[in-house]
């Protein structure tokens, strides 16, 4: 791997660890939900990065699944918190 990939790995790892720290510390439920949303958004980039590292471009389909469906998972909890259903 080149130097640029190592810099990318370091930045994404720090972002993932920070969002998990917020999920552990977060005093309220809304903090944890926002942390889950941030975590999913970062992880989609990580899926695409793995597809590039392994040189198999068909792996990007998995990233597409998370990009479409993570919205619904957050929406379920948000609608529950505002007494929606």
């Amino acid at each position: 791997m080149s130097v640029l990939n190592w810099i990318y790995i370091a930045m994404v790892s720090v972002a993932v660890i920070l969002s998990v720290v917020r999920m552990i510390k977060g005093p309220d439920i809304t903090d944890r939900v926002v942390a889950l949303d941030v975590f999913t958004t970062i992880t989609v980039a990580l899926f695409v990065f793995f597809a590039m590292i392994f040189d198999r471009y068909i792996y990007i389909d998995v990233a597409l699944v998370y990009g479409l469906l993570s919205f619904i998972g957050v929406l379920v909890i948000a609608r529950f918190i505002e007494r929606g259903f």
Partner: protein
Amino acid sequence: MILVSWILIVLMIGLAVLSIELKNLIAAVVAMGAVSLIISLLFLLLQAPDVAMAEASIGAALTMAIYIIGVRETERSEK
């Protein structure tokens, strides 16, 4: 790559402990969703894209919705 899998597995164990120790059941379900996401990443690292996609499509929305409906019908927090 081995460094990335170390980080992910340590985070996964931490989130699993969190999801069974939190008193608020909704927060426990949120932590469970994060565990499912990290497991999907590990499946992709182990070169199993089919299984990673199954875990993604089930764990992203359906499992969380089923738990939330169960909590909605019963109690919100564990006493």
